[in-house]
């Protein structure tokens, strides 16, 4: 039995005349003990999916089960056994760390002592500040505390909606390490994030865009499916470079990617020299050009393009 099973879920908002489709025929499965990522930009429908699975919203059509329980008919069962950390979850700012944790433990019919083992590794990091008010914690610490609160009743499935948004790079890394450790405990985790680089830390990911799932696979497989050659280009004038490359007749796709521009050609026969020639002709200097290893973000952009056409 899968921990989460979603079948053909459709969710629309707004009036009947002009509905906005948040989820368009979404299906996925998460097996027990899996760390499953839902990757997509803001407005892709991640939060709607989470709210339907946590029994907070009703889908317009389609079915979903969590731990084998139907999200509509058996929502009370589900509420007893899942952990949920909503996006922008800010705890009770005027309660201390310990008070927050104790409150959520009691609300979920348990105590801190009972499941301390599960949260121990995370909690020891914030325990020195247990008498500090949650509002006075740093972003990373708040997320750790929120995670403790979501875990304190030892849920069988954990839902984390954008847990690393607004958290610094170091804390993000730590956070993902904690998730890996939790997976060892047999807890299935569904996590959403707008950061593509975090996709590679999941067992499997679903790439979602405008309510549609574009691909579900292991991150390595998604990257392997990207068979085109990709170039990284840099020059002294980056803005003009991007513009020129996008107007190049042999360019299939070119977009800014950090310090470089990523470039995919329609026809690779000309190779490196052809590009260099074109750029030198346009008086670009300090040109750097090399083959690039595609990552999830490149795949995402590629899939997005396919979806539109």
């Amino acid at each position, binding site marked *: 039995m899968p921990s989460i099973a979603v079948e053909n879920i459709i969710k629309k908002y707004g009036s009947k005349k002009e509905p906005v489709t948040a989820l368009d025929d979404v299906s996925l499965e998460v097996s027990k003990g899996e760390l499953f990522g839902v990757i997509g930009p803001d407005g892709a429908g991640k939060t709607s999916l989470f709210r339907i699975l*946590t*029994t907070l*919203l009703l889908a317009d059509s389609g079915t979903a089960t969590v731990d084998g329980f139907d999200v509509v008919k058996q929502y009370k069962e589900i*509420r007893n056994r899942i952990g949920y950390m*909503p996006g922008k979850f800010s705890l009770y700012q005027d309660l201390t760390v310990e008070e927050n944790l104790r*409150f*959520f433990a009691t*609300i979920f*019919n348990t105590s801190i002592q009972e499941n301390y083992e599960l949260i121990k590794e995370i909690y020891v990091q914030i325990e020195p500040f247990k008498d500090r008010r949650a509002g006075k914690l740093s972003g990373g610490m708040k997320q750790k505390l929120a995670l403790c609160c979501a875990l304190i009743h030892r849920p069988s499935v954990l839902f984390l909606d954008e847990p690393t948004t607004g958290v610094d790079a170091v804390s993000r890394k730590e956070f993902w390490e904690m998730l890996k450790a939790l997976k060892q405990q047999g807890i299935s985790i569904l996590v959403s994030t707008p950061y593509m680089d975090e996709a590679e830390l999941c067992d499997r990911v679903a790439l979602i865009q405008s309510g549609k799932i574009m691909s579900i696979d292991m991150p390595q497989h998604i990257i392997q499916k990207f068979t085109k050659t990709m170039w990284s280009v840099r020059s002294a004038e980056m803005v003009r470079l991007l513009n020129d490359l996008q107007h190049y007749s042999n360019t299939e796709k070119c977009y800014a990617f950090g310090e470089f521009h990523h470039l995919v050609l329609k026809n690779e026969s000309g190779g490196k020299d052809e590009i260099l020639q074109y750029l030198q002709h346009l008086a670009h200097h300090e040109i750097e050009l090399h083959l690039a290893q595609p990552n999830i973000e490149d795949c995402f952009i590629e899939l997005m393009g396919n979806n539109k056409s």
Partner: protein
Amino acid sequence: MKQFIIFVRKEFYHIFRDRKSLLIIIMMPVVQIILFGFALTNEIKDSNIAILDNSKDVATAEIIHRLDASRYFSVARNLNTQKDIETAFKTGKIRLVVVFQPGFQQTLLHTNHAQVQLIADATDPNTATTVTNYATNIIRDYQNDLNVLVATPYMIAPQIRMLYNPQLKGAYNFVPGVMAMILIIISAMMTSVSIVREKEINTMEVLLVSPLKPLLFILSKAIPYMFLSLVNVSTILIVSVTLLEVPINGSLLLLMLEALLFITTAVSLGLMISNVTASQQTAQMISLLGLMLPTLLLGGFMFPIESMPKPLQFMSNLVPSKWFFIIVKNVMIKGLGFKMIWKETLILLGMTLFFLSISLSKFKTRLA
């Protein structure tokens, strides 16, 4: 039960750690009572009066003494002729002139009927009415004291009888009014705001996704504010008894129970508001405009309901504060028992059950 206790404790943490709001909640009733009781009072004290005593006998001397001794008047001048009256008013300092007919006591003793003329400065008609009323009452007091000793009663002044509030004390009306207003604001606004805050900071989502029962949630939200409101009732009563000298004539227990009923009404209104709002500001605005204004305008303590147009009179029946105002006036001021207020209590109880059942049935176990 554990869930309930920790939830209520959490609410008290919220209340006690927000020092500014707590101070406002505790001090608001005291300030309002004092404002309404002293500053905004329509009571008139220490008015200067003048006397034209054409009789100068024992009876007039006694009446003058009583007027002067009261806290409403002080005798500023003694006039000698009719002409002096106008000059006295022209100074602007005299509010009332008391004129005794010649041979006042003799006429009173022989015919049992004497006249006192009360001339008031009617440029401010309200003050004039009030001042003449005060004087009439004092004179009637004197007359009553005389009549204790004799068989055929003496008549001095026209009979104006003012029930329960012979001194026209303004505070008598304001205490029940302020009580209704404070309780509506504190109970309804605080309850709705505290629930809506959970929605704003997204903790509501987690609470919904927990095994916590909706009824338990609502109860744990309501009880801290009911407690706080009872504290407010007590401060209002203490301030009004000690500072405003408005006594509690009826049963204190009955008064507290009725207050508790009204608090429950207000809390259930707050729950209803929290069901339909998503931001703290909206909840506050609805509580203020939707509850405080009707309480002030249609509750009966600012503007008498009897003198309103019929549609407004009808609407005032829908305002819970009106009924609570009547109850408090009857119990606290008139000293009446439950027999006299059971109708109002029943109306209030019905309203409460109605609001409670709506807010319970409309409570959303999901987000939308």
